[in-house]
């Protein structure tokens, strides 16, 4: 195992720390770089970083332990993380991962003895339309098969730096299959902002209001209301408005690009090919609420988009669309900084995201107060989804009435769907709200569809009986995931995958979610192993109730959805797995004697149960 001397650590850290400066909000960004350089966060580095930011060591260690891409124990110099979403599993992820492990002589979840390589699973990497996918040292690998893994194996054995691997391994395609108002007509950069400057900020807010745009992250809160609350929160502070060094009031625009919901990948495509639209929307928001600083919180899985996005920001600065006096408007200053996440689904929750932006553990805050009044560093903050900002840019340019004419009365505009699973053409489909599931299934070439997971594990699993339902806030609200399952798929296996996901991603703050998601996982595992009984089902139902009613945030309150949907809609899926008995032990009785059998060398009748 590689050992780090203190002087090495110091030499490695000095330039990193110098680049990031002394504000502790940079802590997570620093730790990501340390992880890249050392394949772990060495204990000595934690001391050093704590001293640099003048924060307690426990805080640094707490952050290092929270995010799954950081590791206080060494991982391989080559760290392969296979995307564990159900769609990757359906494409053969489990076998492929085992295949690679066998070839590399390494056990899943462990580091090879020479420290060269480690192979493990991770939560959905957002490549469901081109899986099975993985990350190698943070860089996305797509469309994996045995041939590609053979090649990867050789590259690892020959210690070729990942930067020199063949680019085709890292090819990520957009797969835009259906375009509408958002993706169809490109926006000329600056046109949205120009329209705002001509019309005025207040008038633009009125247009936003008229558009009835609702948040695209799934919750569907009206964007204009959020923006006006944020604006009002600042107004309330007048007389004692706290300003930054340039004299601008401190308020923030945050773009939530922590697209962690398994099965969702539309933000990946927006940021890859429509970044200007997103940045434009953020700038429009900044003008409306009066923010001078913005953040784009980019999930760690999309690390590969960081440099292109930075370039995009630079281009906008050069074009006068970011920075001071935007488009020549005196006093209109706004710029955007990109923060990377590090493998934590919970950071998609807006207050956890803000904590993470501040360089802390991603733990959802107690609300009230809400981010619109007390957000980043306690200041009024608007947090919106990537797609929401893209819509806002369009609304700024074309007006609220144009937008409101699309979709349904309660769900105006269009929605980007990330379609994956059992269909001929997975990818991005943009539809006006109100489209039926049946229509979508026909368009994507679904094969013998039986069930659809709408909006990912936290959303709803619908059966073939419900295919006439509509994608809309008033019927099937969605953040965009749309996973298609054909008849031969086992709904139990789907729910099993999702309960493992929630248990892995629970932040651990509140009792019901920390313990409840783990209990749910254990019971589902018990049923999967053939030891489930009717009493286990009752237990799942009562756990579901506790999770729904007692949890601190949306993760916990939706963590039972996959199980409850399965129980309600696919009774066959679990009934055939249950034993006739009313009760089965919680653990494998005979298996629990195995160690003692080995020690004593016994194999007699009494040594078995």
């Amino acid at each position: 195992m590689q050992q780090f001397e203190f002087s090495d650590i110091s030499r490695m850290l000095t330039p990193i720390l110098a680049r990031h400066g002394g504000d502790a909000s940079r802590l997570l960004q620093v730790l990501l770089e340390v992880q890249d350089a050392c394949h772990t966060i060495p204990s000595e580095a934690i001391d050093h970083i704590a001293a640099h930011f003048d924060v307690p060591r426990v805080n640094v260690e707490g952050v290092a332990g929270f995010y799954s891409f950081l590791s206080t124990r060494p991982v391989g110099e080559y760290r392969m993380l296979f995307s564990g979403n159900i769609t990757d599993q359906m494409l053969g992820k489990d076998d492929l991962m085992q295949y690679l492990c066998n070839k590399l002589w390494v056990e899943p979840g462990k580091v090879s003895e020479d420290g060269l390589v480690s192979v493990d699973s991770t939560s959905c990497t957002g490549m469901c339309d081109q899986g099975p996918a993985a990350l190698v040292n943070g860089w996305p690998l797509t469309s994996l098969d045995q041939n590609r893994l053979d090649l990867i194996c050789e590259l690892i054995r020959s210690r070729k730096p990942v930067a020199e691997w063949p680019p085709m391994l890292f090819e990520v395609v957009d797969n835009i299959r259906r375009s509408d108002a958002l993706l169809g007509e490109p926006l000329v950069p600056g046109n949205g902002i120009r329209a705002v400057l001509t019309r005025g900020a207040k008038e633009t807010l009125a247009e936003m209001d008229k558009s009835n745009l609702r948040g695209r992250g799934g919750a569907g809160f009206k964007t204009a209301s959020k923006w006006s609350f944020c604006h009002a929160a600042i107004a309330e502070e007048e007389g004692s408005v706290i300003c930054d060094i340039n004299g601008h009031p401190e308020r923030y625009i945050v773009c939530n690009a922590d697209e962690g919901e398994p099965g969702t990948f539309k933000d990946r495509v927006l940021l890859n090919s429509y970044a200007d639209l997103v940045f434009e929307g953020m700038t429009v928001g900044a003008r409306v609420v009066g923010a001078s600083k913005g953040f784009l919180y980019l999930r760690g899985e999309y690390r590969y988009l960081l440099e292109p996005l930075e370039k995009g920001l630079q281009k906008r600065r050069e074009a006068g669309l970011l920075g001071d006096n935007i488009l020549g408007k005196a006093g209109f200053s706004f710029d955007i900084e990109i923060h990377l996440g590090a493998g934590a689904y919970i950071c998609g929750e807006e207050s956890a995201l803000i904590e993470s932006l501040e360089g802390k553990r991603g733990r959802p805050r107690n609300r009230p107060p809400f981010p619109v009044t007390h957000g980043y560093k306690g200041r009024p903050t608007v947090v919106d989804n990537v797609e929401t900002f893209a819509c806002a840019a369009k609304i700024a340019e074309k007006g609220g009435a144009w937008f409101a004419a699309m979709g349904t009365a309660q769900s105006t505009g269009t929605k980007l769907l990330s379609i994956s699973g059992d269909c001929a053409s997975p990818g991005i489909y943009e539809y006006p709200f109100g489209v039926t599931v049946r229509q979508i299934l026909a368009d994507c070439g679904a094969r013998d569809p039986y069930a659809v997971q709408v909006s990912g594990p936290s959303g709803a699993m619908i059966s073939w009986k419900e295919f006439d339902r509509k994608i809309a806030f008033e019927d099937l609200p969605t953040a965009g995931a749309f996973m298609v399952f054909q008849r031969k798929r086992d709904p139990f296996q789907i729910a099993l995958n999702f309960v493992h996901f929630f248990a892995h991603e629970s932040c651990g703050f509140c009792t019901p979610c920390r313990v409840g998601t783990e209990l749910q996982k254990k019971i589902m595992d018990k049923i999967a192993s053939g030891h489930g009984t009717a009493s286990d089902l009752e237990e799942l139902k009562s756990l579901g109730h506790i999770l729904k009613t007692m949890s601190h945030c949306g993760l916990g309150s939706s963590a039972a959805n996959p199980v409850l949907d399965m129980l309600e809609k696919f009774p066959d899926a679990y009934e055939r797995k249950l034993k006739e008995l009313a009760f089965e032990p919680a653990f494998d009785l005979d298996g629990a004697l195995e160690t003692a059998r080995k020690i004593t060398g016994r194999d007699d009748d009494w040594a078995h149960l």
Partner: protein
Amino acid sequence: MSKNIIIDGLTVPFQEGQTIMDAAMAAGLYIPHLCHNPEFKPHGSCKLCTVNVNGRNVASCTMPAAEGQQVLNDIAELNAERLALTQMLFVEGNHLCPACEKSGNCNLQGVAYYLGMMSPHYNHFYPAREVDASHPDILLDRNRCIYCELCVRASRDVDGKNVFGLTDRGIMTRLIVNATSGLLGDTSLAATDKAAQVCPTGALLVKRKGFAVPIGSRIFDRHTIKDVQTGGSHE
């Protein structure tokens, strides 16, 4: 004129800035809780203090009281859910009461007695957790930690020492101390610190005091946690 909320049909006055828990406590009403301690900033993690406000469940320790709130607290459904949460806390750690010095003075027990917990119900996790006896005056037994962060808050906000923190996440969450060695003995914690006194369970114990009062004569052997926390003789 004072403002009021209604808790289980009783009119309870509150002042601006008070939470539902504050108002209830001031009125002598008991809402079960573990992570809350009125001396510290509300935390909201144990969720035992969940009440129903106008149809929606909220943590009473963090929810500001507001005019018009109809609060349900001491009702069968909520108490059943609180019992389930208490049972979850029992099975996720290693709470072997007969072997614990804190037994009888432990708030986790007190709440469990109050809610009539006859068994932990769920299957035990029996996690492997570390015991740290390196400090000359204080024992840290992580088997009994319920992540209420009272020690974290006390050390940070009262002692100004930041001795404690949490790391990892989910069910793997664990209490850590502010030392490169990871040992309590290498931190600046003193037995007189607030942080050494606030643990609601037996995870943090001042050494050589364990059996000053014999088992059977301790707080919750004689009084319910409701009486203790709403009556005159506060801990």
